[in-house]
């Protein structure tokens, strides 16, 4: 398999590191070589977070360079914009339709509309999905990350099936969270299958 690079990003606390673990576990179970780079520490919540996911036979470096990500998967719109420079030419941006303002006094915030217009102006191939709404429907906003993972499968960003990821969810997360996450996974998948046509 040729090397694939996917950058996950969002706000600390959204479950981005867990997303990486779910993907990594599923890939390892399929015998795929994977390297996932995370950053921990400083503070547990609220900061800008990115996780580099790389897989394929010739993967050595754990880091994705700018302009080399086949896809950027963002759980928040500002962070999507922040990490857009990582996207390769004609790469895909899968982005959650959520705008989370940083808790800083007196800052100027871009609006949702401005961000989406910026994507269009730059000719980004993007898929906007309200994963938080899907997750709430599935039972908990905390499953937004897994709903996005469903969306990644719908866009064929990973050499994995829904079944592979279901197994990984069961292996990785505590059992009381299985039901809601499996539901969010399925619903996220189905929603993005629908949206895909507009991409």
């Amino acid at each position, binding site marked *: 398999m040729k090397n694939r690079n996917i950058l996950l990003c969002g706000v600390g606390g959204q479950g981005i590191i867990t997303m990486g673990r779910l993907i990594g576990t599923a890939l390892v179970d399929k015998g795929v070589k994977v390297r996932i780079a995370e950053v921990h520490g400083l503070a547990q919540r609220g900061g800008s977070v990115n996780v580099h996911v790389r897989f394929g036979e010739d993967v050595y*470096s754990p880091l994705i360079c700018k302009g080399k990500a086949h896809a950027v998967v963002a759980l928040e719109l500002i962070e999507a914009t922040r990490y857009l420079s990582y996207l390769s030419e004609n790469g895909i941006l899968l982005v959650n339709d959520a705008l989370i303002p940083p808790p800083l006094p007196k800052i100027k915030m871009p609006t949702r509309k401005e961000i989406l217009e910026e994507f269009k102006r730059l000719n980004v191939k993007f898929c906007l999905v309200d994963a938080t709404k899907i997750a709430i429907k599935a039972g908990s906003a905390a499953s937004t990350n897994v709903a996005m993972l469903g969306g990644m499968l719908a866009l064929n960003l990973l050499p994995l099936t829904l079944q592979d990821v279901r197994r990984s969810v069961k292996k990785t997360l505590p059992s009381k969270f299985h039901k809601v996450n499996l539901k969010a996974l399925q619903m996220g998948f189905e929603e993005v299958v629908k949206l895909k046509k507009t991409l």
Partner: protein
Amino acid sequence: MTKYLLAPSGEEVLLMGNEAIARGMLEAGIGVASAYPGTPSTEIIEALSRVAEKVGIYVEWSTNEKVAIEVAIGASMCGVRAAVAMKHVGVNVASDPLMSLGYSGVEGGLVIVTADDPNAHSSQNEQDNRYYGMHAYIPVFEPLSPSEAKDLTRDLYDLSERYKTAVFLRPTTRVCHVRGNVVLGELKKPERAGVFRRDFSRWVLLPVNSRRLHEEAINRIEKLADSLHEFKYNFLKKGDGSFGVIASGIAYNYAVEALMELGVYDKATVLKLTSTYPLPRRLVKEFFDNVEGKVLVVEELDPIVEWGIKVFAKEEGIENIIHGKDLLPRVRELDTSIVASAIARMLGKNYDINVYYKPTLALPPRPPTLCPGCGHRAAFYELKIASAKAKVKAVYPGDIGCYTLGFFPPYRLVDISFSMGSGLGIGLGIAKASDELVVATIGDSTFFHAGIPALINAVYNTTPILLIVMDNGVTAMTGHQPHPGSGYRATGGTATSLKIENIAKAVGVEFVEVLDPYAVDASVKKIIEAMEYVKKENKPAVIIARRPCALIVYRRKIRRGEKIHVYYVDQDKCTKCGICVNLFACPAIYVEESKYLITPTLCTGCGVCAQICPFKAIGLRG
């Protein structure tokens, strides 16, 4: 995670670098492990603590890195294999016994993990701890991936015992916090029944022994340098001789991919170095025997390998042009593009880094923040109000922990952040050298780690200073490890909980008060009292602002299925004065279309915002 850590041999699992190192220690049969938590090293000992009872090893969180390494040295003196882990700056704290360890050598295998942090992702500096190896005559090994880190850790125990030397394992953030495929090996039954091996000639570093031990340490390193060409983690890939690359640790990954990207991998002669101090002399010689052209040394941070290689080349009469930090940065991390650019420059080729999407929209920064409900936020707010009410212009030395975030607006109450415990110590100097009122802040874990000697100094030298200990009961920033005040140990159970107020009183501080930062008015009053005491009496005062870490309390409530009683903004009463957002800045409170609102999923129900709202517009949701 525990189940993977103890999974049977032969299984291939996804492990984080730190977990892989922990597994390697278990495969080596360690009996004792100790550490003070610090990013990016924490998960090593954390992983071991979770399986300690099951596998029968002793694991502890020590009060600081000096004590941690001493515990490991003690175990090694009893012939037990021991592990100690710390972040790079932790080695500074441990460096005193470390230097003696370099002379004495070991009995039981001893691996010291120094987790370095190029790019200072969560550290005060980017120091390159390979210098410590050279300084202490302790060999340094750099793993490149979780998989290699596991095997290397295991094998280093054999090397440590064969040469009777402690060894440094030096992963960096991009090994510690990288997850990858790891094939598990056989777990080894730990040896814990140690017996102290009395040896005056090695363990007693009086001058009579030290002079001899110094020579022995140098001989040990020389002997190792002559054998490391056989160490399987160092290897040579031959090319066509036109050019060569020497790469160490994590940098090897970037070098290989860069060579592939440039389409010159086959041509390149590549020396992959895991032992960077001492260098494997014979393998380096063989490398140069196979390269006629230029050579690039690829390593992160300081040119330690490069210098070693250049000295070696000079001694051996090798005349290849050797590049390194002339083409590569000496600061921050490397990546494939940076290394590819350097190789291309050396070879006179072109290499462009293409960025296809460059947004021009101005984005707000998103620094890490104190969590909703965090007692530190309330304490900083109270300190700000108290300073204003008491009309004092103070200097605010801070320290290292979550509360360093008091640096960011709107609090701006961290004027200094240096190293563990230094806020108080530096504050003592400021108080003596100026007329400024000094109000230092420190966390509970940092107080135990390095704050106590400075506090004793303040009492002894009667220095007027107010110390506010922000006590949330755990070492929070690194992920809630217990400390001497927590009441439990690394492996759980119960432990004596040392009270900071008792320590302060015991060392002679006369003004000691405990406050609850959730009670705003009372806290402000106490802080003002303490400030007035310091100014009037010219003596130190200590305030302990105590509230358990909000994240722990919140998670516990969720786990127990307890309801979180959240607050809301009554729009009829809200005058949009902005105090809750612009002075308090809780992440749960936000402004949308000029309306002040609270995100119910973020609110932890601490109620501090309701107290600070001058218009009583924030209330409990029904």
